[in-house]
């Protein structure tokens, strides 16, 4: 097989995968009505996707905020501008770190679990078993997981930012004696609700869509062998990270690049 043959083959393979995943996504959207009629399915998945990621997000948010507080004080004190610490911590968390880091953590914690779960269901023929019983596994198994991920990641990202800002307060104000009034008032005067917070939430909604989609599709599309599942899990984490960072650049350019 010569080089052109293999190049063409891999291009066609990638295109076919993109097409399959788009069809997969459309059929997930079609299942929304089914989910709304059976909220118990969604609540069960919200637990395993959202609640179990809760502590990871809380603790990493706290520490990211504290590191931002410490680094911010060291950098800003060379300009005598420690009072701007609040702006720095809040802007970087709300605009960038909150959505991006929580999406990366979410891909590692929940996305990989989803892929492995769906992949194993496929390998043990549970999905085909459901089809035999005239239950559509896309609706019953996969769609609840998709919407649970889609709902919980924006909530987790907001939590991450809020806890990070409190962490920045702990490190900057309690530990390094930045003035608490300056920390909060400077933050409030320069963080805009629509420009910063709403845009951050929009970012995390898009990341939620990306991560849940990639994780579920990789599981659904995995080779039904143990090696296939392990590869699919790896691909979920790697592709999610790529997609998150790429889309983060695009969204940042769209949202904050204009001014």
């Amino acid at each position, binding site marked *: 097989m010569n080089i052109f043959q293999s190049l063409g083959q891999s291009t066609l393979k990638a295109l076919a995968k993109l097409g399959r995943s788009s069809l997969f996504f459309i059929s997930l959207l079609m299942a929304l009505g089914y989910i709304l009629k059976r909220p118990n399915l969604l*609540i069960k998945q919200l637990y395993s996707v959202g609640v179990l990621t*809760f502590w990871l997000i809380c603790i990493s948010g706290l520490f990211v905020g504290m590191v931002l507080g410490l680094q911010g004080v060291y950098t800003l004190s060379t300009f005598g501008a420690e009072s701007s610490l609040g702006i720095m911590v809040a802007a970087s968390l709300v605009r960038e770190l909150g959505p991006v880091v929580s999406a990366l953590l979410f891909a590692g914690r929940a996305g990989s679990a989803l892929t492995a779960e769906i992949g194993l269901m496929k390998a043990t023929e549970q999905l085909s078993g459901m089809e035999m019983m005239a239950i559509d596994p896309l609706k019953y198994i996969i769609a609840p997981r998709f919407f649970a991920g889609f709902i919980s990641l924006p909530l*987790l990202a*907001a*939590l991450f930012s809020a806890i990070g800002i409190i962490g920045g307060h702990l490190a900057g104000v309690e530990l390094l004696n930045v003035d608490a009034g300056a920390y909060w008032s400077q933050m*409030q005067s320069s*963080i805009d*609700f629509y420009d910063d*917070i709403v845009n951050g939430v929009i970012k995390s909604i898009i990341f939620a869509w990306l991560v849940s989609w990639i994780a579920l599709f990789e599981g659904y599309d995995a080779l039904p062998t143990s090696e296939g599942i392990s590869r699919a899990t790896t691909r979920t984490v790697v592709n999610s990270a790529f997609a998150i960072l790429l889309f983060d650049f695009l969204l940042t350019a769209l949202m904050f690049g204009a001014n």
Partner: protein
Amino acid sequence: MQYKSLEILVGFFVSIAIAALFFLALQVSNFNALKDNGSYTVNAHFDDAGGLKTKALVSMAGVPIGRVTEINFDARNFDAEVIMRIDSRYSTLPSDTSASILTSGLLGDKYVGLTPGGLDESLQEGSTIELTQSALVLERLISQFLFNSSDKSE
């Protein structure tokens, strides 16, 4: 029974996360300042808007009473037209109020400071502030100072 505790945990998670969103909106951002109880617009022409940005504060006596909404270049008079929105709670500002572009702190943001005049008429929607004072441009000030001191030495 197992479902019950699961539902409670999910409810707890969602409520904590929504509380975090509220915290971001109320405590971190200027959402409170957006409370809109009506406003009216006035405009002012400055020779130099130097560094004033849209959304900058408009304040009188050090209290924020409005925001700058637009800064345009006026091609007829070759100056800057600044349009600002003032809270309609403060509708009794005298019509000869003067506006100047000031800086909060040494390197802080620019804002528009209003100083009240003495007339009985008050500013209306769309009225123009006639008395303005431009932004202080540091380079110009320094060059003026240098020219003055060189004049003296001669």
